[in-house]
């Protein structure tokens, strides 16, 4: 019985699982380093992240999981919910211990919870596809700020690369301060040190925008207002599909 502390990365968690097997530890709880609160009278153990060990656990998971659930542990981990570590740990243990597949055992609280977390993260990914809004700059770059609740930007890159293959674009995560830049050939991960856009709502400085950009934004806002049927007003439904936290990035919703 021990409290295990890891560094908060997915590799760290997988290393922890590895250590549990190797040293025959049954953890009471697995905590992030940042969230850990000192406890007296219990054994605690800090696990160092080890790429190789994490890789071995990941590989074993891939062998055991059904194709459609290959990403399940990582997706669920991204949700960052409290207690996700122990749920994942119990799931992995049970997965390795049984000879048959337990991935659809929704009567088991752990499996169901993992599925629900995964669903949340997947929804955030698809919201990103919906609500990314590009601003065209003078040098022909299409820039979009985003602020997803979970760190899911990498999952959307394939979609954007295929869709906007003939334009340079940059999608930047303001919260986590990194982004992806597409230069018509490949996509690169970038970090911008000198920002020429607002850190709050990602608006590019007006003198850097392409001439027609603002007029297209106005056109879009006009369109958005005209397509609405006033007699059927339903703000609740609108907010349900398009939560308010996205509004500051949407030209049709952000007030000027």
């Amino acid at each position, binding site marked *: 019985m021990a409290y295990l502390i890891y560094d908060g990365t997915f590799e760290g968690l997988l290393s922890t699982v590895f250590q549990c097997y190797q040293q025959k530890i049954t953890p009471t709880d697995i905590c992030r380093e940042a969230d850990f609160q000192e406890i007296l009278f219990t054994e605690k153990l800090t696990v160092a992240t080890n790429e190789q060990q994490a890789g071995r656990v990941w590989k074993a998971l891939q062998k055991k999981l059904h194709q459609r659930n290959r990403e399940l542990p990582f997706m669920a981990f991204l949700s960052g919910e409290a207690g996700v570590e122990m749920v994942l740990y119990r799931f992995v243990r049970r997965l390795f211990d049984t000879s048959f597949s337990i991935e659809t*055992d929704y009567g088991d609280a752990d499996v169901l919870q993992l599925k629900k977390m995964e669903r949340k993260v997947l929804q955030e990914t698809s919201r990103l596809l919906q609500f990314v*809004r590009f601003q065209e700059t003078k040098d022909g770059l299409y820039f979009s700020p985003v602020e997803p609740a979970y760190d899911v930007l990498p999952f959307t890159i394939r979609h954007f690369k*295929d*869709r906007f293959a003939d334009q340079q674009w940059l999608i930047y995560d303001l919260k986590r301060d990194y982004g992806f830049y597409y230069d018509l050939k490949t996509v690169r991960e970038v970090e911008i040190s000198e920002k020429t856009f607002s850190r709050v709502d990602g608006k590019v400085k007006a003198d850097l925008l392409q001439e027609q950009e603002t007029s297209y934004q106005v056109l879009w806002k006009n*369109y958005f207002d005209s*397509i609405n049927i006033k007699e*059927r007003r339903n*703000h609740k439904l609108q907010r349900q599909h398009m939560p308010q936290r996205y509004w500051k990035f949407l030209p049709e919703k952000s007030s000027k």
Partner: protein
Amino acid sequence: MQVSVQEKLKILADAAKYDVSCSSSGNSRSNSGGGIGNAVAAGICHSFTDDGRCISLFKILMTNHCIYDCAYCINRRTNDRPRAAFAVQEIVDLTINFYRRNYIEGLFLSSGVIKSPDYTMERMMLVAKKLRTEERYRGYIHLKAIPGASPELIAEAGQYADRMSVNIEIPTELQLKKLAPEKDYLSVLQPMNQISEGIQSYKEERKKFQRVPPFTPAGQSTQLIVGATPESDREILQLSSNFYHQQKLKRVYYSGYLPVNEHDKRLPAIQSPPLIRENRLYQSDWLMRFYEFSAAEILSPEPPFLDLEVDPKLAYAIRNLHLFPVDINKADYHFILRVPGIGVQSARMIVDARRFRRLTSYHLKKIGVVMKRAQYFITCNELPSRMANWEPERLKSHILAESRIKRRKAGDTQLMLFPPQDSPASVPRQLHFKN
């Protein structure tokens, strides 16, 4: 010039808003050859208007001039409204520029009829052609087929569009004659049949040959106006059921009638659009498409209208109490699907999960089953059937009362100054049709 585009966009988007369809699903296409755009099978909504409807496609009329005078249409010839028309290039530019900024998933082009159906259809086809060939645009295109346009034009348009649609609008021929004397039912059905045959042969050829030029790969859809004419829900559901089975339509949309032309005495005078009825029709539509119900099961012979108080699935269960309770741990997937409170996702999860252990009501709740409704229609591991001796009418009023109590509790935080008057909501409002 920009100003005039602004004005036109306002007028023509405003005129297009009564088209309900805005889906961009049904076709998956990757962006090969360095053009712009792709199509995602599930469709993507990019924004939601204040009325809660999604904006997936850039929905616009090419023009709102029209030679027809249909009573239910806002763009009828005799209406005094600002009129405008887009040039082909203007629509192309707007579409591409909106698309590049990720505002939209594609284009939905409709139009009033100018000069002749052929002339209008040709210009619409030109927009799609220009987008596909000159701009190398590979995103979604939804084109309206104009009733009465020549088959050659529709066939050509089908090569560029992902989805095509012809709006039936009025469910029966008799009423259509009354409200739109210049149109005839046949001219609406003809393009619809042509498109469905085209899709059919495209699908068959694709099995035989490697490369076949696509023909509306995302299928076709149509739209019906609900509440403008005295048709019953049974007639409407029967019609859409036929569309799904015979014409193989992908979607039928129902649009609650909005009193756009109040002066016209052929139309009913209503205060607000029949939103609940529209909602019940959509629920029935879902039952037909995803829950394996047939139109005849949704509406029993006696009342020709859907029950506005309870949803059609619950109404079906109450009418057919002899089929219940369903044993969650043993019954077939198809029977579990018929239980009120269990959706497609829950039903699948139940079938998957019960291989591992016997499910209890606790598990069901966790999975996402709405036990409030489902408990009367199921037995599971420990739950005694609550079916006992319910009479259908009593069960219905019991379920309704429980949902009402819950709603009242939610609003019980403060006493009301003026207690709400009991409105006779259960009696459907009588509509008057003048002959």
